[in-house]
Every structure is written in C-alpha cells, then in structure tokens.
C-alpha cells in the first residue's frame, strides 16, 4: 500500500522507530528509556521481517501444502538472532537499573545527576 509514493508498511516502521528513539532520549526514567530501546528494536525486527515477505508467499517450510513463492528465510533467522540479542541487552540493563535503585533509591536521571 502506497502513501505519497512511500510504502506504508515501511513508513509505519520508521514511525515506530522514532517513537522508541523519542522515549530513549526525552524520558528521564531509566526504565522508560529501556522501553524505548525495546520499541526501537521491535521496529527494526518488523522492518526486516516485512522486507522478507513476498506477495502471496507461504512460510519457507517445504512440506505438502505449501508452494512457491516462499517468504525469504534469511530475515526470519536474522530476526531470531536479533531477538536474542535484544533479550540479553534488556536483561543486563534491567539488572543494572535494579542495582542503581538499590544504591541510590531512584532511577530518574535528573535526580541521579543531583546526587553528591
């Protein structure tokens, strides 16, 4: 579907990415920043998977009942890798946020800056 000559699916991905980026830079709460990062990651995954789809495509599984054209298998495998990396990043960041909260009692960047 086209919008002003742009592929609407890709535009949606860009919008999602920018929403995440805004959360990342504008929010002062560390958890919200992390959520923003996850939204950005989701946008990237959506972009890659969208790029791999084909008109009328079947899943790339060669069994009876599916037929060409198939969706490209590479984006799926890449996104699987990306999801695992996203989980790892989220886990380490959350652990650090828990530590920051335990040490300073706050996870607001503004308040953390004012600490002696």
């Amino acid at each position: 579907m086209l919008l002003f000559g742009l592929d609407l699916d890709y535009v949606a991905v860009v919008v999602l990415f920018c929403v995440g980026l805004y959360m990342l830079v504008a929010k002062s709460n560390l958890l919200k920043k992390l959520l923003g990062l996850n939204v950005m990651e989701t946008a990237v995954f959506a972009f890659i998977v969208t790029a791999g789809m084909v008109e009328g495509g079947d899943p790339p599984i060669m069994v009876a009942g599916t037929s060409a054209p198939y969706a490209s298998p590479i984006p799926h495998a890449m996104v699987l890798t990306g999801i695992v990396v996203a989980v790892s990043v989220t886990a380490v960041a959350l652990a650090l946020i828990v530590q920051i909260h335990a040490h300073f009692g706050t996870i607001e960047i503004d308040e953390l800056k004012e600490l002696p």
Partner: protein
Amino acid sequence: MRPWSLLLVLLVALPLVAGVATLPPHDAPDAPIHTQVGARYLERGVAETGMKNMVTAVLLNYRGFDTFIEVVVIFTALAAVLALPRGSAPLPRGSRPPPTGTGTIPEDASARRPREEEDPEVASDVPVSPVVRFVVRLLAPFMAMFALAMLFRGHITPGGGFQAAAVLAAVFIALGLVLGRNRAAQLVPVDWRPWLQGVAPLAFALVAWVGWRLTGAFLGYPIHDHTVQEAMGFVLEIAIAVGGGVILVRLFLEMEA
C-alpha cells in the same frame, strides 16, 4: 530537553524515510532479498540440509556460526547479570544525608530490604487472585505441551528451539508467580542448573566438534548423510530450547531478587 529531543528524532526520521523511499515495495517478488542468496537456500536447502523448515536450515546450518555466537551472547548476558553484586547495601552517599555517628546500618537500608530475607518460605509471594492461580495451574501442562510441540514439530511447522525456550520459560515464570518461586524452583534440581544454563553453547561446541571430525570443517554438516544432519540439528534444537528457557527463567529470578 524536549524540543531538542524532537529535533533529534526528526533528524533521524528524515534520512530513514528517504531511505525506505528507495526500497522496492515490501512484497515484490523481484526484490533483491528474494533473488539473491535467499533464492538459493530455498532452491537447494532441502537437498543440502535435509531439513524442511528453511528458517531452521539457515539458522543451524547455513548460518550456524551466527547461532553459535547467539547462544553464547545470551549465556554471557546471564553471566553479566549474575556477576553484579546481589542485594548489596546502599552506598553511604544517597539522596538522603548520610547517617552520623556510629557505624550502624542506616535505617533506610533495612527499610528497602525485601521481606524475603526474614521468611524465605513466603518469598515474594504477592497475593495472587484465585482466578489467576487456577487458570495458570490449569493451563501450565498445555503450555508445556505447546512448547514441546513447537520443539518437536518445528521441522515441519513454524517453531523451533528458541520459540520453545520462550514458552517453556513463560510456563516456569507463571508457575513461580502463583506457586511461589521456591516450589517452582524445585522442578529443576540444583546440581543441574549450571549445566542447564550452559547447555546450548556446550551442545554447539559438541556438534561443531562432531562436524569437524566428520567433514573437516568446524560446525560442518555431512551433506550427503541426512540422518546425521538431522541428529545434529535435533541435538542443537533441544539444547537451545532447554538452555534458553533455563537462562530466561534465571534472568527473571535475578531481577526479582
């Protein structure tokens, strides 16, 4: 801060929009993504890997190194989380003025302590509604069965090791929330846990070694022996499901503690 953030977002958005404007439509069959190496995988994948699910074939076979490092990444993430000091006392500096006088523990330190320390048996049991408790206990076997189905039917249906790992982890986390983490934790023997957490990288190393012995290439698959190929893939999928699931559960428990 906010206007600058919006400006930055716009500065990022414009090149992105300009970039996607040059891409072929996302479902065009003649886009490069469908005509380059992806087409070759689809064409020869079954003959070369013996797998019917091409995503699995790309994941374990064509791009096996990628997946090997991937399971190492999530294992490393767990190691990093575990390496952080647990439940350490607050630093003397804080938002409140530091306590004066003797070296007693500041009052706010004990206040921030979770109750679990006093009574580990009722650990972190937020009161759960009976409805949630009933539904989770009712559905847990089916969720586990769904995970197993994704694992063992993953070669001919969408699914596979990572997906099964996510569902398995969800089962354990949901059970831990309604039953209390201690009862859920009893399901996995203590002695096994370190090995289960590392089972995915270990299995990859083992399979890579077997492939090296058989074909002379690290993580090589014997291209003409589909039985051996399937066995190697099967071992990897099970290891990914178990190892990934255990790591996810452990990560969750570390956050909670």
